[in-house]
């Protein structure tokens, strides 16, 4: 089974691994220790100490924090329980008129604002643009991934997490609170 140097995985993440080495990774059987190495690298790159349980995106991680599992940006900004769509805790900028859409898609490229809006989800901490959606009005934000962390750690990695939580989408519970 192939094993790759941690330094090479870092270069891969940074987009500077030479193409022949990338091809080697693509063609070789996958290294079973990759997840741990990857998390180790990401953990070494942040200034906070909570353990990364899952890199949700290259910028957002699910971390263990005082018995809870929360979404946290590389910059340290937190977004709450990972079972609630983190977008509800972000800043949002919406382009829904010709003027604001034209800042990105001018002239010939202008979409029709009566058909769609561009939503930019911004980290309140570092100002990173975390996700962009191009959807018609009325579309709830995509909750791209709700991991079953307990199954993942217990059954796929073979090392259960110290506690378990229910695998359920809690986004609408928060919405219900907002609606009161």
């Amino acid at each position, binding site marked *: 089974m192939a094993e790759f140097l941690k330094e090479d995985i870092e270069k*891969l993440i940074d987009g500077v691994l030479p193409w022949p080495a990338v091809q080697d990774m693509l063609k070789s059987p996958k290294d079973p220790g990759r997840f741990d190495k990857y998390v180790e690298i990401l953990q070494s790159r942040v200034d906070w100490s909570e353990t990364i349980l899952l890199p949700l995106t290259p910028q957002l991680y699910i971390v263990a924090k005082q018995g809870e599992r929360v979404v946290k940006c590389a910059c340290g900004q937190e977004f709450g329980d990972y079972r609630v769509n983190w977008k509800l805790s972000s800043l949002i900028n919406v382009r829904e008129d010709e003027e604001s859409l034209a800042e990105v898609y001018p002239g010939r490229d202008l979409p029709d604002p009566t058909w*769609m809006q561009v939503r930019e989800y911004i980290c309140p901490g570092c100002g990173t643009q975390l996700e962009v959606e191009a959807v018609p009005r*009325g579309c709830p934000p995509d909750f791209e991934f709700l991991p079953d962390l307990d199954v993942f750690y217990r059954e796929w990695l073979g090392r259960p997490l110290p506690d378990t939580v229910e695998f359920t989408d809690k986004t609408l519970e928060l919405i219900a609170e907002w609606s009161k």
Partner: protein
Amino acid sequence: MAKLTLKQRMQAGDEAFAKTGHLFGLEELACKEGDPGTYEAVWHILSNLCNTAWATGCKVSSSPIAAEGGDALWGLHTPTGEAICISRGITAHAGLLSDMIKNFIRAGYEEFPGFKQGDIFENNDPHYGGIHSPDFDMCMPILYEGEIIAWASAVSHVADAGSVTPGSIGFLNPDCYSDGIPISMEKVGEGDRFYPWYEMRIRSRTRTPDFVMGDARGRLAGCITIRERLYEVIAKYGLEFFLEASKEYVEDSRRYAVGRVKTQTVPGRIRKSQFKDLAMKGKRVLMGKQDKDCLFSLPMELHINADASVSLSLAGVSGTVPFGENISPTALKSGLMMGYSHIIGFDMFNSGPIAAWDIEMPPAGSWANPFEKDFQAASGVAWAPAVTWVSNLYEVFGRLFQMRGFVEEMAAGSATIMTAEFSGVNQMGAYLAGLTLEQASNGSPARGYMDGENSAWCIYTPEADFGNAEIAELYYPILFIGRNTEPDSGGYGRFRGGLGHTAVWMIYGTPGLEYQCGDAGMRSKIIVNHGMYGAYPVPPDRPSYAHDTNVKELIDAQQPLVHGRGPAEASEISERVKAREMEVAAIAPFVTPEPLQDYDLIVHPIGGAQAMGDPITRDLSAVESDLNKGWVSERVARDLHGAVFECRDGEYVVDEQASQARRAEIREQRKSRARPFRQWWSEEREKVARKENMSTAVTDMWRSSMELSDKHAAEIRAFWSLPDDFTF
């Protein structure tokens, strides 16, 4: 004991799979374990056998689509229809061919008319599992000492299937009766020959019969090639080994896919919404009911289960449309099989990987399952919404690979697909109708570590090839006056998608030519929802054309012509050409209102693929490189990537320090411009309730998707805190 019929064997196989979790009940792979070298060698021989069929079949075919573009496929199947391996070419069809064979078996054809050596069976009818009429699916049983030991299959995309409008991208078809010549689960020949009436029907009911029959002979030649070469394999390795190993290849592939999911992804729920427009109001249409704008909802919800199986729901899809963009569930599943095989199960491309999927039937009456409620629904270009949906697979699995650290496997979404078709009399006086191959070479999606490649990828075929310009000029009365890489066409992100290209055609040598700018997964009013990790998706598809122009005068005066699109704010065609009728940013799809004539121009862009990552994190040296290659505009480099640069003696130089300072400013500007989500939500829900600034295409879409799924409707109402009886 009485010999089992194929139908009984198929049922036994299904029961064995349900009982053991292994295809054909194969708990052990005896051939693989007993003789791994031979097992592997025979796989490659069979795979090459299919590729030989592809090469032979395309050479025999006569339409430029198959002969020049290789837009066809051949396959080898088990007696019960599972694909063992397939050729290069339009791999999206492997599942269709497999299901077609199963459908012939299910329908009792083994009893009547029987399956005999040399028999030729075909289907192109979506009501019986076809995708759209121009894709002629063929299969031939392969017998050995009187027993069916395998099937050979083929599909080619013919130039014209006799639909109501010329060509093969029937987006304007109002109903199934306008979809063209149906071959409805038919035996079309025997003794390796087509029946005379098959050819008569093609001659009387398609516009390019020589091409269509040439392609039929190409399919037949490829299937015969598979059969005859297979006998050589059996002579060398034995019938028993072939029969056992061929089942093992399929089960092996299923295991590979399940193993890959378990070791390279994460269990949980994936959601990705997607939309596709079809703006037809006020355009040239065929029936009154088509004078409308449509928007499709194409949501995807996947569950990766604890056992690494995958469940899929399409709840939330919208209703059928009075155009040719409805698709049968069989065809949609085939598209899924292709996408999944590209992403997960690519070690051995066959029916195995998809066996691990549990697919919820899309709601009846939706574009993805039309016929139960709308039997007349058209499917002239059914793959238009399907490829859009397959594109989602690329992005969502790219996200999963990232979570496990397999960055090298990540990909963003695909490009959109807009076709160009011509019909009319060409420079040799011959009537022509057919597809150019421009759309078969989009940019490839951004990877997790690099930009995509330019004009080198196509979602529906690994045979990404836009063909030789000279060949297109031979068939059609057009001259290429531009075929260039299109800047800014790969989205805007840390890594951009591979760029697309733009073809510029001048019409020449015809008394009149129709240009059909077709829908094969394009977006024109909207932008695709692929803003992965904060990138901006690619711009909408906006072709241009000029009719009744001064181009001849420009040529005579040796003035500059049009060779590309030019900047988004100032298109080259409007800057350089005068015309009685000009569309600079036409909303696709459409057919030109009048036939085009000599010296008219078409500017037809082919999309780049999607980007990933925040655009202000793009490496500055990559921005500088793109500026110097002309691959990114100054506007995008400056405003979206936050690069500060100057141009010295024609060479762009990026100021690293100033750019980092500018990027820091952009981060602060974003924070001050954006609002807390909750604040936006409370205002937005009021606008949703009032249907404020929402096109009827949008409200119609929401209304139908909510009517078709109570669960989907309940979730939308709950998210926006709308009353239980709210509808759009």
